[in-house]
């Protein structure tokens, strides 16, 4: 009974679910697009961003990837839209609807 995570979207039919909802295999959370859960997302204004990197460790879902000492675009596939990064940014570079 291998888990076909690709079928586990919110439109999945009962026939597509695994027996007992067992999720077989490791690291499957990457394939599970929790980004579907929200309708609002943070956005970054690159002109205001100083690459201080205070936002990246503040993200509870590790959705702010960092490479070569610079943060990259949000991982919107897994960002649940909590808005914590908006508060973490000292330069007002990150904005999101509903978060001041």
């Amino acid at each position, binding site marked *: 009974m291998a888990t076909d995570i690709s079928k586990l979207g919110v439109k999945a039919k009962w026939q597509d679910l695994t027996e*007992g909802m*067992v999720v077989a*295999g490791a690291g499957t959370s990457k394939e599970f697009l929790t980004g579907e859960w929200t309708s609002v997302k943070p956005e970054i204004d690159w002109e205001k961003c100083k690459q201080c990197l205070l936002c990246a460790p503040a993200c509870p879902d590790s959705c702010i990837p960092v490479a070569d000492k610079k943060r990259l675009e949000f991982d919107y596939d897994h960002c649940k839209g909590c808005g914590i990064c908006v508060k973490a940014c000292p330069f007002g570079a990150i904005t999101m609807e509903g978060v001041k």
Partner: protein
Amino acid sequence: MSKRERLSGNEAVAIALRQINPDVFPAFPITPSTEIPQYFASYVANGQVDTEFIPVESEHSSMSAAIGASAAGARALTATSSCGLAFMWEELYIAASNRLPLALALVNRALSGPININCDHSDSMGARDAGWIQIYAENNQEAYDNMVQAYRIAEHKDVRLPIMICQDGFITSHAVENIELLDDADVKKFVGEYEPETYLLNPECPAAVGPYSITDYYFEAKRNQAEGMRHVPQVVLDVAKEFAAISGREYGLFEEYRMDGAERAVIIIGSAAGTTKDAIDALREKGEKVGMIKIRLYRPFPADEIADALKNVKAVAIMDRAESYTNHGGPLGADVMAALFRARSEALAVNYVYGLGGRDVRVTDMENVYAELQKIIDDGDAGETYRFMGIRE
């Protein structure tokens, strides 16, 4: 070679479990099921089984441990009665929804209160919607035979659901009867090895068991679970056929006793079926057209098959050894009447509540039920359909 023995129902089930040699048996004692883990503990101490026997602190824990063991990939079980089953309530649903094929040796006893240690079916009837397979025994031989067949049904790839093997507290659990045991080697071969596809102790494929299901998935998960239940009757019949080949004893979804040409029928579960058979034999001697259906598989409920078995019957008495407080009868009554209604049956049906808290059932009680059914046929009217048998009033 099979072996004749005289055994209590509890000892018979314990011997079946010794022969099955399960991996994990967490247990907490409660009358009248206590002897099952008690006998089994002696098999563990004697080195007759390889089972990890875990004395836990409550039934909540025994079922939790059995679930954990089963999820880990072990063949697990526990035993209980009455309030012990009630204390497992939360876990019963989890075992079923996680599709874990563990077993529960249930010795039926009244639920408190008033507090009582004797037989009725209120404990398992309360758990009838938990998603477990439920199989009931009339006598010690059936309790043994059902236990031997349990894992073959529960672990079948089309089923994968937990199974409750029920017998009547004290009446069969403690009464000693002559029974026939199978050879250890025959049981071992019949039951086979448990080979789960996905299990927590598999280093090749780590897994998550029991994940949270939000509203988007919960309903589909329950429908998926119901599909396992749909396959149960066929698997029960297939396993029974194989069991007959090694034992010579045949089982179905239910037993039809002298139903040929029967105009009046009783539908009953458990040990009182034996008493009813004596009443039927006496009445048949007098030329009365009476018969009985004894339920073996209660969950899932073989509604179509039972309606078909009753198609030529004029009056039916459905016997419930449990109250539902619906003001119109017990759980078996509701199931059978729904089956008759869907089949557009014209049989006149009444529902008796009987035998609560161990109230004795005598042959004359059952003869009276058949006499009442004759009156119903003569009147062409079922009258009060919610009745009590053996109550002082």
